[in-house]
């Protein structure tokens, strides 16, 4: 190989042109030193290809390959290079062959490079995908392990409710194999004791309206047993957010549930008979009163065994207990099919509750069923025991009574049934009830009740109509009876009078009330109200009263002028009545007297002027009659007005009782009535509430209707 002499000026020009060509475009990204070496190397090769003898086309091909190696892969570079080479004068017309060799070298290198890089990127993508798959498999394996070995039952279903997968714990929970469960539908897993709404929220979940829910839910196992679970269901959405799967997690809470049930059963059932106990009965009864339908009725049959005590005492508690169990079983068998609840209240007392009574005859029918069920003798061991029972029947509209009053009434009706002779039912009668309450209450407990502190006093306010001031309070005795609940004076005072128990009770009331009034005066001075205390007829006829009062006023320090005693029209029946002397004795001590319930006793008005009274209370029925649609209201007002005028003519202060509306209060004020009392002004309340009113309502209570007060006032 010989080297031809080269024209240096041409070579330099080519080198410059070549360098300019490569420094553009891609060359800008290449390190200048590297670019210099590339320019020199390739220019040298091309130069030799042009001039060397013999012609070595591979030199030109090598130059093309070096460009590709340095990432001069843009075809424009090739076009420009060929253009430049073609302009070079070449020996023996080898120019086209040289350009061809250069282009072929460039293209071959580019092809190799492209294939290599494609191979590399494919390999890289492959590796990356395998890595990702490996990671995914590892992740899946972890999830699978989590799913399979979880102690909690897990099931996966689609949103149509098809069960797709269940784990071991869930299979064990259901006592079923995967083949029993996969392919079943979630909707088939309904149980009669499912909580309200569980299937509604399920529908919300699978339709994408909620993300999860939790419930305690029972399921039937494969063997038919019931398993209670704490169920959590979550919704899985796809990438677009559409519901895709549901995942249910179930925790077996059967033991916990059974324990709760047992505790609840123990709390609500009588261990001897298995019947619902007193607490359960009251819970059911009170539920009836929570939100009753208008017109809803209920019935109670109070049942007491006749002669149980004899069995118990003579044959022993064990036999007694067996008898009670047998009776309970009979009652349950006879009444539960009718839809009635039978409960044991304690001892030999049972009750039947009719939750949706259709009328009195249904309750009576239930009572007859009770008697019939117990008619046959009961076999206990060798004993053939004849048990009978008495039944008190109460059947009422729910809205007319309260649970406490209903139970008391049923109990007293039972008491009447027993008194009337055994083995019979008796129907509730309001009048009999009131009588029975009084008699029962007083005869059984009253003597001890005072000592036991079962009495207390509420105070009902009396307001002055002219200025709305709290003028007086009336002391009203209450009895917190251990069995009957709180009784009002109308329920026990009459009987207390009949038995003479009114004397110690009356003294106690006077003592308590005077002490309370004195305390208010000490605390509030003139703002404290006058005290009104009722005097029973028997008290007024007692010679000891004056002395008692004297002592009480002394011990409590109450100013007698702040005390008014209320008597009824029947206290004094004639001018020679010995009660008159007592009343005068009281007035001489400085206390005032008022006639209570005036207008109900057909009293001789002539006596009124002889009585040492300074006040008169118009019976509540007069104001009450104003609202009776059967009676003419204006006539009523004329009567009230007449009573007020008459009282004023006698120099008496007049109080209207039973005032329930502001309108009535206003009209009474216009008529000239002095004081008023009634629900419009306040019911009887605890002394603390009276103290609050004195302290917080120094202006009293509004009486006049705004605007009208100006017209009629003064």
């Amino acid at each position, binding site marked *: 190989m010989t080297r031809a002499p080269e024209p240096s000026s041409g070579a330099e020009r080519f080198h410059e042109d070549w360098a300019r060509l490569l420094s553009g*475009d*891609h060359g*800008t*990204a*290449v*390190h*200048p030193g590297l670019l210099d070496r590339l320019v020199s190397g390739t220019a040298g090769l091309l130069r030799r290809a042009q001039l060397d003898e013999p012609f070595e086309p591979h030199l030109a091909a090598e130059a093309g390959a070096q460009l590709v190696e340095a*990432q*001069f*892969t*843009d075809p424009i570079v090739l076009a420009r290079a060929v253009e430049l080479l073609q302009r070079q004068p070449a020996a023996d017309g080898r120019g086209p062959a040289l350009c061809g060799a250069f282009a072929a070298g460039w293209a071959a290198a580019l092809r190799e*490079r*492209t294939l290599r*890089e*494609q191979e*590399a*990127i494919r*390999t*890289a*993508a492959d*590796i*990356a*995908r395998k*890595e*990702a798959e490996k*990671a*995914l498999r*590892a*992740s899946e394996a*972890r999830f699978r392990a989590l799913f399979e070995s979880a102690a909690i039952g897990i099931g996966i279903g689609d949103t149509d409710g098809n069960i797709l997968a269940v784990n071991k714990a869930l299979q064990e929970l259901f006592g079923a194999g995967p083949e029993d469960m996969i392919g079943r539908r979630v909707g088939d897993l309904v149980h009669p004791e499912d909580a309200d709404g569980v299937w509604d929220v399920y529908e919300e979940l699978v339709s994408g309206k909620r993300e999860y829910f939790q419930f305690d839910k029972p399921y039937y196992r494969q063997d038919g047993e019931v398993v209670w679970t704490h169920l959590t269901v979550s919704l899985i959405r796809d990438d677009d957010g559409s519901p895709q799967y549901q995942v249910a997690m179930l925790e077996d809470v059967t033991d916990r549930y059974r324990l709760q049930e047992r505790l609840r059963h123990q709390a609500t059932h009588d261990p001897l008979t298995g019947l619902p106990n007193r607490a359960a009965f009251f819970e059911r009864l009170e539920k009836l009163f929570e939100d009753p339908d208008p017109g809803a009725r209920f019935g109670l049959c109070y049942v007491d065994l006749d002669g149980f005590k004899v069995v118990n005492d003579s044959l022993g508690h064990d036999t007694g207990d067996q008898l009670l169990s047998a009776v309970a079983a009979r009652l349950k068998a006879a009444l539960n099919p009718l839809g009635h609840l039978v409960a044991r209240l304690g001892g030999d007392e049972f009750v039947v509750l009719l939750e949706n009574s259709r009328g009195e005859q249904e309750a009576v029918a239930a009572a007859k069923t009770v008697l019939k069920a117990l008619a046959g003798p009961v076999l206990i061991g060798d004993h053939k025991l004849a048990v009978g029972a008495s039944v008190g029947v109460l059947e009422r509209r729910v809205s007319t009574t309260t649970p406490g009053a209903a139970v008391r009434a049923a109990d007293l009706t039972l008491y009447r049934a027993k008194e009337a002779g055994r083995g019979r039912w008796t129907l509730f009668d309001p009048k009999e009830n009131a009588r029975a309450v009084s008699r029962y209450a007083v005869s059984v407990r009253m003597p001890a009740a005072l000592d036991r502190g079962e009495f207390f006093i509420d105070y009902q306010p009396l307001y002055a109509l002219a200025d709305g001031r709290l003028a007086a309070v009336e002391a009203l005795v209450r009895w917190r009876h251990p069995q009957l609940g709180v009784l009002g004076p109308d329920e026990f005072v009459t009987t207390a009078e009949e038995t003479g128990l009114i004397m110690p009770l009356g003294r106690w009331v006077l003592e308590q009330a005077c002490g309370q009034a004195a305390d208010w005066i000490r605390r509030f001075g003139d703002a404290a109200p006058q005290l009104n205390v009722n005097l029973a007829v028997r008290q007024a006829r007692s010679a000891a009263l004056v002395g008692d009062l004297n002592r009480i006023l002394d011990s409590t320090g109450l100013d007698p002028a702040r005390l008014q005693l209320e008597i009824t029209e029947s206290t004094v029946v004639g001018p020679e009545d010995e009660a008159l002397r007592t009343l005068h004795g009281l007035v001489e001590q400085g206390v005032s007297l008022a006639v209570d319930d005036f207008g109900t006793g057909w009293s001789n008005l002539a006596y009124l002027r002889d009585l040492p009274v300074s006040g008169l209370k118009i019976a509540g029925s007069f104001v009450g009659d104003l609202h009776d649609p059967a009676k003419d209201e204006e006539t009523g007002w004329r009567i009230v007005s007449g009573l007020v005028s008459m009282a004023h003519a006698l120099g008496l202060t007049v109080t209207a009782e039973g005032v329930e509306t502001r309108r009535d209060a206003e009209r009474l004020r216009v008529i000239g009535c002095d004081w008023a009392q009634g629900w419009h002004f306040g019911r009887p309340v605890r002394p603390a509430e009276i103290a609050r009113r004195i302290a917080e309502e120094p202006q009293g209570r509004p009486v006049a209707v705004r605007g009208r007060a100006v017209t009629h006032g003064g």
Partner: protein
Amino acid sequence: MRRPNWVPEGTDLDKPNAARVYDYYLGGSHNFEVDREMARKAIALWPELPQIMRSNRAFLRRAVQFTAERGISRFLDIGSGIPTFGAVHEIARAVRPESQVVYIDRDPVAVAHSRLLLEDDPGSLVVQADVRDVDDLMSRPEVTALLAAGEPVAVLLVAVMHFVQDADDPWKLIAVIRDALPPGSALVLSHASLEGRPDQAEDHQRLYRMTPTPLTMRTVEQITGMFAGFDIVEPGVVYLPQWHPDQPEAVGEHPERMTGVAGVGFRP
């Protein structure tokens, strides 16, 4: 929220990928048809894109050389992509043969490719991590080892932060990295700017919205803000060709047409 690391990142070859599109712009063949399709569309809309990418690559080269000449031999290349042509370790070792580089990319294909290329190079390590989960990135053993010596490290965020959306707070991410760097460390950053070609910005960003890596171009002021805590070397944050050109004439008449801005800062 950080995903638990036992849920694997997928490789989605059906979508164009920024690293492979970039390779295509630079004349490489480390790409698939989806990448090329996307790149062709982009070039049709904006014919200068290959030139812009070359300009960016040239900045990377100059900046690595610059920091190596200033004594740095540890490099953290975040968003390294497919470093076939002018890789950081090659450039750096031309100045400092002992240079170590940790390449980081979030794309598993780019990472696998880099590993293939670099498996015989003990001074170059490849980590798959995402700068948006910067705490995870900075706690990788390869990264902590690079920082542990206490020697200055050059952190390269070249054409990367415009793939981080405002919601991920790129400024905060850089601050977290900065606080882990020894004194004398450098930040090398380039970023697509809104000012260079405001006429192209919207179309271009729209095109990248179809990739897993949408593009957020930012103002020079916002980009300069990324150097908080660094002393920016002269001439500051400028258009790519304007940053320390090899020759004055290499800047060209319209450096703003390269649209990207770049800068280098040192941590005091």
